[in-house]
Structure formats: structure tokens, C-alpha cells
């Protein structure tokens, strides 16, 4: 196996492990740390793919992705966290052990489901595409089962990272405009959630999103 492929599979493994780690840990700071690492792994994947087929645009996308995912977004999340005292995911809707087993099941599902995709383009890069799919599923799962607003943002970011990874691996790169557009959307979402979290904290003294039910008209 060429060195490049080895590095690529290493980056993909790290990418998936970070997602599993996000389910495993309860401390919100650790979550953000893992997200940063995952962003770096994603950027690594992008760089490796760009080096495979030297193209200035692809390299630019890779660098932009790295700055955004491993730099800007984690920084924003840390700022949110600084204002919110609850630093742990104390009681997720699904307990951690069950979440991890669910993650295992989703990984298996992703692997089985992505098989046709892999057969379509039997390159080394496409073989790793199920990793991205698994991360998308784990991200959704995280967003659906965690109470803290920050965990849910992290979940959404995982989904985005997963989509980006699938796109990179399956097609060898996303058009610059699409990727940047999606990322801008996401940036906006994070900023809105940041405001929301702060308000939530001010109103309820907590950032449990289940409290939002209280706002409903009866």
C-alpha cells in the first residue's frame, strides 16, 4: 500500500474515532477538543486528496476547511461554553453505553449500505467513504439524544463533517462554492445557537433544550 493511502486510512480512522469519542465523553470541553481534532483529520483527508491530484483550487478548499473546522468553529463553541456554567452532559436521553452500542450498529449499517458506492468506484479513497456515512449517523444520533445545547451543536457539526468527508472521498473533492456555501450556513447556525444558548441560560439558568417546551402556548 502506498504511503499516501496509509496516511489516508489513518486520517479516516482518526475521523471516525473522534466521532465515537464524542459519544463516549461527557465533558463538553472534551467534546470540543475532539471536534477540533476531527476537523484537523478532515482537513488532512482533503489535503491528501488534493496532493494526489495537484490542483490549486482543491488545496485552497482543504486549507479553508481546516481553518473553519479546526479553528473558527471550535473557537466559537468555546466562547459559548465560557458563558454557560454546566460543563457536563449529565443525563443524556440514551445512556452512554447504549449510545456506544448504537454507534457500533450504525457503523455496521453504514458499512453495509455504502457497499454499492464502494463497488462503483473501487479506489482506495472510496473504500473509506462508509466512514463519512457513519459519522453522519453518529452526529444525528448525538443531536437527537443529548440535552445540552452545546452537545447538539457538536452533533450538527459532526453531521456536516461527515457529509464533507463522504463528498471528498467519493468524488475526490467538492466544488469550492458548494463547500464554502454549506460552511457559511453552518457558521450562521452556530452563531444563532450561540445567541439562543445565552438567552436560554439567562431565562432558565440552564441550557437543557428540553426546557424550551416551557415556552409553548398552552
Amino acid at each position, binding site marked *: 500500500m502506498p504511503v499516501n493511502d496509509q496516511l489516508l486510512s489513518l486520517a479516516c480512522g482518526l475521523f471516525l474515532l473522534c466521532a465515537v469519542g464524542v459519544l463516549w465523553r461527557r465533558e463538553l470541553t472534551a467534546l470540543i477538543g475532539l471536534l477540533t481534532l476531527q476537523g484537523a483529520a478532515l482537513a488532512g483527508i482533503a489535503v491528501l486528496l488534493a496532493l494526489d491530484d495537484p490542483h490549486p483550487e482543491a488545496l485552497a478548499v482543504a486549507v479553508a476547511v481546516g481553518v473553519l473546522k479546526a479553528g473558527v468553529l471550535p473557537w466559537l463553541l468555546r466562547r459559548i461554553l465560557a458563558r454557560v456554567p454546566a460543563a457536563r452532559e449529565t443525563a443524556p436521553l440514551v*445512556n452512554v*453505553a*447504549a449510545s456506544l452500542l448504537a454507534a457500533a450498529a450504525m457503523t*455496521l449499517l453504514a*458499512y*453495509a449500505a455504502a*457497499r454499492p458506492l464502494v463497488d462503483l468506484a473501487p479506489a482506495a479513497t472510496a473504500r473509506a467513504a462508509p466512514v463519512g456515512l457513519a459519522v453522519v449517523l453518529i452526529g444525528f444520533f448525538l443531536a437527537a439524544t443529548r440535552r445540552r445545547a452545546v452537545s447538539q451543536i457538536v452533533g450538527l457539526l459532526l453531521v456536516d463533517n461527515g457529509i464533507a468527508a463522504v463528498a471528498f472521498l467519493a468524488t475526490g473533492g467538492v466544488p469550492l462554492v458548494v463547500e464554502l456555501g454549506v460552511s457559511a450556513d453552518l457558521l450562521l447556525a452556530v452563531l444563532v445557537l450561540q445567541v439562543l444558548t445565552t438567552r436560554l441560560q439567562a431565562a432558565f439558568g440552564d441550557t437543557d433544550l428540553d426546557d424550551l417546551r416551557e415556552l409553548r402556548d398552552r
Partner: protein
Amino acid sequence: MNPVPTGLAAAGVLAATGAAVALVLPARWRSAAVGVATAGVGAAGAAAGVAAVSGHGWRAEYPDVLPLAGVSLAVDPLAGWFLLLTGAVAVVVGVYAIGYAGRGGHGPGARGPLALLPVFVAAMLLVPAAADVPTFLLAWELTAVTSLLLVLVEHRHGPAVLPAGLWYAVMTQAGFVTILIGLVWLAAAAGDPSFAAIQDAAGGLSGPVRGGVFVLCVAGFAAKAGAVPLHPWLPRAHAEAPAHVSALMSAAMVKLGVYGIVRLGFDLLGGGPRWWWLALGAVGMLSALYGILQAAVATDLKKLLAFSTSENVGLILLGLAAAGLLASAGQPAVAAVALAAALLHAANHAGFKALLFCGAGSVLRGTGVRDLDRLGGLSRRMPATTALVCVGALGAAALPLGNGFVSEWLLLQALLHQATDAGTLWTVVAPVAVAVVALTAGVGVATFVKVVGTGFLARPRGEEAAAARESPPSMVAGMVLAAAACCALAVLPALAGPALDRVTAGLRAGPRPFEGGAVDLRLAGVGSTIAPLWIAAGVVGLAVATAVMARLAGRPRRRAAAWDCGDGPLTARMEYTATSFAEPLQRVFDDVLAPEQDVDVTPAAESAYLVRSVQYRRRLPDRIEARLYRPLIAAVEVAGRAARGLATGSVHRYLAYMLAALILVLFAAAVR
């Protein structure tokens, strides 16, 4: 002279004699005579089985025995394996029953129950020997009816016996109906009810017919085998039946369900598409996990053993599913290993479960209780039973030195063998199956540590256990036979290698699973070897050597009261009970088991902070039963109430119904 028909004929004659003798002899001699006869039936059947697995085939037609269909018998290596297994269990149970049923002629020692015992065994021997659909169905139904009557033997002794019998009757008859429909459909489609003809014609049948037959029959067979979710009769019937009947049912009769699946799936239909085996594997994994989790938290000894039966049947079904899946993925060598694992595990389970149910019977007889929370201290009072149960528990826990280990090792070898060209499905299913087998094995170990540790060791937890008596010699002798079989299977499984080779070869499942080897079990398709004899010799030898050397180095041993933290002697109430032992596991699997717990704290009169007593109650309802069967039973009750409008009690009306039905049938025939 061919030993197979001789053995079978001897079994038939002995069964008839035994039944007749039971009806004639006075109570004093009855159990001994019937026990010997039953053991004889078993020995004859086992001899026929041994002959069959060592290469003696046999087939015969008796067209005049039954009107219309006749009886057709044939014994091939597969049938021989199950004959051997059933016969061996019957030998153990026959010897055991001499003492167990010899209690002044009531309960299991009464005329009827004793007369039924050899008949039940003979019926079970007839099932694998059947060579056409009518004979098979006849033998199957005979087995079901005799076992049902035997389950009901102690119905005057406990209120739970009748409901248990009802559950068993309904489930086994429902299962019989699905098997009947399936096999008749298959025979109709093949044009001939004989197994040989079906085998020839099965390849040409359409996919939906084959699939439909497989689903119908496997549902019936799985119900008989006690696979989850068709298991609710099992913990009830096994717990409430007399111990020797439980042993026969759990060790032998349940295996007939496995036999049915093997016969149908691998022989008659000759393999099938992937979805058959995926479904079977899912049932197997569910049975294994759910069975062992329920066993882990059960405190009723016989109920625990019954759930463990579900678990082991699950593992066997998983092995069969793996064999089918691998065969359909073009991996015949590994498929043969998986099939051999399933068959060997069936034999191993027969050995240790017969032993354990007999042991449970001895405990029940010696103490009068089967609740582990009230047992304990039996290792002093019932040393022989304790030692024998330990042999069985070692096998059931699938630990090295026990017989269950070898077959679970084989199963794991088949599952671990990552065949790269077996397809995505296998890559995804195999790790899940390995994890399920591993978790099952782990929880199984905890379960049987609980059985031995809280049931037999330390101090008695109730006065019944404190007054325990050892069983009579014939019961111990029966258990010794079973234990000897377990030890043989544990240490020298290679002896079964040629037989298993012949069985798999007969099923055209693939090449021989084993490479020769007198002591090692060497796998042909997978590059692994196990040497149970060396493992056993190593552990025992090193343990003895260590003990001797340590003794030579040190001082003599002293016996003293257990360390009580300086505060008075320890009482039995301070011991861990079976419930407390299983509590951590119960908490870990809270979401699966959903126990109902109450804690009542009664404060003292002086202050709310001083506690006078704490009461803890726990109930573990069977969730699958509650979710699946309760609604079904409720629906049936509603339908029954509605149907009562049809039955007014008027004879004229009933006759009119019959007339209407007859006209309807004739009309349908005429139109067609």
C-alpha cells in the same frame, strides 16, 4: 446382521414391556423395573445411533402398519447422531428415575407416569428414524402427547403445574400445526411424502414454496426447541415437570426441534437463500442473549436451567445459521465447521443439561426447595450431588475443562474465520455474532458461578437447606453416568470427530470439518487446533503440583471462624444471595430486563431517621411474553367470547353447523 434395526426393535420391545410392567407391578418394584426398562430403551437406541454414525445405513417400509400411509423408517448418520444423543440421555434418566420415582408410588412413581416414561423415550427415538412425512408427524405428535402428560404428573402438588401444562399444550400443538402444514405442503409440491422423493424434487420447487415451507416448519421446530420468542412454555414446563422429565425434555426432546431444522434445511431442501439463515441467525442470537440474561437473574433453579436451555438452543441455531449462510456464500469448508459445532453443542448440551436437571431434582428432593436464595451449604450435606452439579456447571459455563467449551470454541472458529470472499453480509454479521456469543458466554459463566456459589457453597440460607439429605445411590449413579459422558466429551471430543465427519458428509454440507488427530481437534477448513486433553492435564497437573509444593514449603492449615470484622459471628443473612449476586448484572441490563422493584422503608416510632426495617421486593416479568403474548391471549379471549354466540347449547343447532360445513366442502369440491 445390521445393528441398527436390531437396536430399534429392541428399543420398541423394551418400551412396550416397560409400559406393561409399570401397569402390572406393585409400587415397591415399579420404579426399579421401569427405570431399568427405560435405560434399556435408551441403550438400544444409542447402540443403533452408534452403528448409524459409524456407517451402517438402514431403511425399511411397513405399508401395513398404518392405514393409508404406512410407516417408513430410515437411519442415516444425521438420524444416528440424534438417536445416540436421545438414547444416552434416556439411559441417564432411566437409572436416575429408579430412585427419583421410587417414593411410595405417588406423583412420578404412580402407574400412569411410569408407564409413559419408556413410551416417551421410544417416541423420541422414532422421530429421527422417520423417513416420510406421515411417520414423522406421527412420531412428533406421540412425543408431544406423552411429554405433555408427563409434565402434568405433579398437578396435585403445585398450583403452577396446570398453567404450565396449558402453555405447553397450546404452544406445542400450534407448532405441530405449522409443521403439519409446512410438511404437507412440501410433500404435495414434491408429489410424494417420502423424504427421499422430497429430497430429489426439492431442487425444482419454486422459491416461494421453499421459503414458505421453511418458515412454517422452522417456526414449529423453533417452538419445540424453545427458541425466543417462542419460549414461554419452556421455563414453565421445565420448572414444573418432575426432574427426570425435565431432563428428558430439555436434554433430548428440545434437540428434536434442532433435528427438524437440520433435516429440513440442509437435507430435504438442500440449503437455501441468505434470508433464511439470516432470520434463523437472528432468532438464535436473540435466544442466546435473552435466555442467558433471564437465567442470570433467575433465582428458581429449574427456571434458570430452562432459560439456559433457550440460550444453548440459540447458540445451536446460530451455528446452523452460520453454516447455511457460509454454504450459500460458497464457503463449504467453514460451513462444515459451523454445522459440526452446532451438532457437537447439541450433544454437549444434552450431557450437561441432563446432569444439571437431575442435580436440581436431587436438590429439590433433598431440601424441598428450588429457590437459590434459600439454598446454600449443600457441599457438606450433599457432597456427591454438589460435585456432580459442578461438572455440569463447568460444561454449561463453557469454561475450559468443561464440555461446552469445545463446541463454543468450534462455533467461534467458524464465525471468526473472516472469509474475504464471503461477501459484505458476512463481514457485517460475523462480528455481531461473535460479540453475541462472547457476551452469552461471559454472562453464562456468571450465571453458573451463581448456581454453584450461592446454591451449594458456604452456609445454608434457610432451614430446609440446613436439613438437606443426600440422594439415594441410584439417583447419584444416574448423574455419575451423565457426568462421565460430559467428561469424555470435554477431554476427548476428537472421538466424536469421525461421526461428525460422516454426518456432515451425509448432508452434502461440505468437506469433512476435521483433520484426523486422536487427541487434538484439528480443523480442516480453518487453521486452528485445540487439545482439550492437554489443557485439562495441564491445569489439573499444575494445580496439584502447586498445592503439593506450597504445602511442603509451609505450615499446617488452621480452621477458624470467618473474619467477621470483630463483631460477633456471621449469620446466613449476611451472605450474598443469588438475587444480590445477580444485582449488578441486572442493573447493567436494566433496559433489557425491566425489573419491577419496590423498596419499603419502615422508620422507627421514635424518629423518621431511624430505620426499623427495609423490605426489598423484585419481580422480573418476562418482557417478551408480556409484550407479545398478553395481547395475543387477550385477542383470543375476545374472539372466544364473540364465538360463544354461536354455541347456544342446542343440539339441533350444532348438527345444523355440521350439515352446513359438509355442504360447503362438497360445494367447493364440485366447483373445482
